[in-house]
């Protein structure tokens, strides 16, 4: 009984720690995937504009992506074989 209790106590105590670990791993993966796929491109751009050109108008996210796609149309990038 006492043995079981002993093993249970640390398990109960460490549950939040393990949970924190899982959560931080999940948020790390989420950060990596979204950064890799480009979800954060707009936020990066807005942060840049705010920091360096605070007076400039910031486009909406929709407009930002339209401009970005138009840029790619004008300036194609290669993909490898």
């Amino acid at each position, binding site marked *: 009984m006492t043995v079981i209790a002993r093993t249970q106590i640390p398990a109960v105590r460490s549950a939040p720690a393990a949970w924190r670990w899982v959560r931080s791993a999940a948020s790390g993966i989420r950060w990596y995937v979204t950064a*890799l*796929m480009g979800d954060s491109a707009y936020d990066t751009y807005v942060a840049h*504009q705010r920091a360096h050109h605070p007076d400039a108008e910031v486009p909406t996210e929709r407009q930002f*992506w339209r401009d970005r796609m138009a840029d*790619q149309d004008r300036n194609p*990038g*290669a*993909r*490898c*074989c």
Partner: protein
Amino acid sequence: MTAAMPRGRGKNGVLEQDPKLPPVAVSEKDHERENRWTLPKILLWAAIALLGAVAWTMLAIVRGETVNAIWFVFAAVCTYLIGYRFYAKVIEKYILRPDDRRATPAEILEDGKDFVPTDRRVLYGHHFAAIAGAGPLVGPVLAAQMGFLPGTIWIIVGVVLAGAVQDYTVLFFSMRRSGRSIGQMARDTLGRIGGTAAIIASLLIMVIIIAILALVVVNALGESPWGVFSVGMTLPIAIFMGLYLRFIRPGKITEVSLIGFVLLMAAIIGGGAVAGTEWGQAVFSLDRTTLAWALIIYGFIAAVLPVWLLLAPRDYLSTFMKVGVIVMLAGAIVLVRPEISVPAFTDFASNGAGPVFSGSLFPFLFVTIACGALSGFHALISSGTTPKLIEKERQTKFIGYGGMLMESFVAIMALVAAISIDQGIYFAMNAPAALTGGTVEHAAAFVNSLGLTGVHVTPEMLTNTAAGVGEPSIISRTGGAPTLALGLAHIMHQLIGGPSIMGFWYHFAIMFEALFILTAVDAGTRVARFMLQDSIGAFFPRFRDVSWRPGVWVCTAIMVAAWGYILILGVTDPLGGINTFFPLFGIANQLLAGIALAVVFAIVAKRGRSYVRWLWIIAVPLAFTAVITITASLYKIFSPVPGIGYWANNAKYRAAQAAGDGSLGTPEVVEAVIRNTAVQGTLSIIFVVLTAIVMVVAVIVGIKAIRDGVSDDGEDAPVPSRRFAPAGLIATRAERGLEAQWAEHDAAQPVGRGASRH
């Protein structure tokens, strides 16, 4: 803090750091301390070296009945680690000499869009997704006809000494020039003649690469209703994703990619059901010529449509699949550990009479496996987007050299997958229809007549294998993709799903290869059109205006016609297609590598006296590529053996035509061979002439620079950096210390320094 700061080297103090900022680079002292050999470090590297040596011994020396696939993984990974830890370090220390006190273009020109200092781990993924495509999945499969060892050695040793060296140096020098392209660097370094030759070569290579990749897809989908349906479904899926991102939820790329992935899986499963119905077979069984025309029409439309509608969303899907599948395959090989019964060498390595492609090991192995060992095309990527996103100079080693090591590992896995299937089935799939006759009886008889030890196939085996993956036939499915798909299905079904799900895995593999290739076809057509518009624009300025639609249409049509012509020749080639055209792909790719290395050679020679001693690091791969491309081209032009020499074959068929000899085939067949060999032979001549021009110019420029004692390679003026980030995947102790100082510094600032996470 100031004590740990490195001293400015610049005479005018140009690299003196802002004393108000924490250090922007690890100090010399800390650097030296961290590089000191300690006992645990020595033991670790000794263990890696030992494991690698054991793995190589198992592959190269021990001759058992079979060899376990795990040794391929160990041999590759241990060699990569040693190459990265030791050889890349030598390149860093003596050839490139990065300096973290210098700001990168991403920092100097930061605009939040094109120039963005990007987390090194994210950029690694980006760069890898841009360089790796179908290439490393195809070449190793074809080269497996020579046995597993030649391909394995070339992929692993080649990447360490050549491929990764090229990618790393091109990336670095482009970064020192604000992200200039390899074409521009060629013009700057080699002058007009060398630069023009380099640009013509890149355009031509683009055309060849698109044509051959398209041929791979056509061969994989011909007469395959399941494949045609599921790959065809990628178009509506991609368009849906494009519309979703444009009108519903802009910027939610991961979300839409997940939706796209689910739809893609549904398309693969649905394809199996559709192919099982009569109407499905009637609608989606297309012959290869029809498919080739469909692809040509598609190529034109896709290249003139706006990128947001088709290209960009499919690119997201392809990146998503690429990383996922590679991780999955690596895991599966480690868990399943298939036994390989293919011999280390077959007779085809020496006699050059292999049915998959002709020619002996030297030089044809080295042009068959380009991507994965040394790929010139990477020079275009390494000098494109990536250098504009690098945060710190010293990260170029991890991204450039390390990224290429990963591609090489993909090539090794493709090789393992291809050799894990029965060797008889391998030859039945990869020998051209001209040899197998296209029927199971003929194919089995042909493969058994090759005289390979331990190979015996029966018609039933071939029929059952085809039925197992839901295909009408697997005979002469040349091009590498179907073989790899069968290998992947063979490995994966042992892990998940059992034999009943082989068809799913097979079409899953075909689908993801087709995704890469279709993206490469669109993007390549666009880039080629852009180059053409630029060139025509020199005479008719209106063509430079990329929003002038008639110009876009005309140039797209010209480029599509160019690759479409070669594709049609390949599809209708009476001698096979892949076996006759693939060498051109490899030669073109290696030629581009030769050009890139020649440019790097000239740049390093211009850097100054202390660099000349180490010039051999570039000269060795440069000389090697020069020798293999030129030898392979000369064989293709001058060899008197009709199986190898294009012109010899041309003469043979011409003679038959003149004599009215019908033994080589109908008059149409003879006519087709004469035309195809003439095209192939002409391209070979153009390639070899262009290579020779660029190499000669580079050597002259290099020698002149050394003699004149030039010490200016034409890079941008240094600007002091104002930020810090670690160089490698894992931050060292000193780097963590600096990161902590920067975190403290940033926290004290009123405005945060961007959202980037360190």
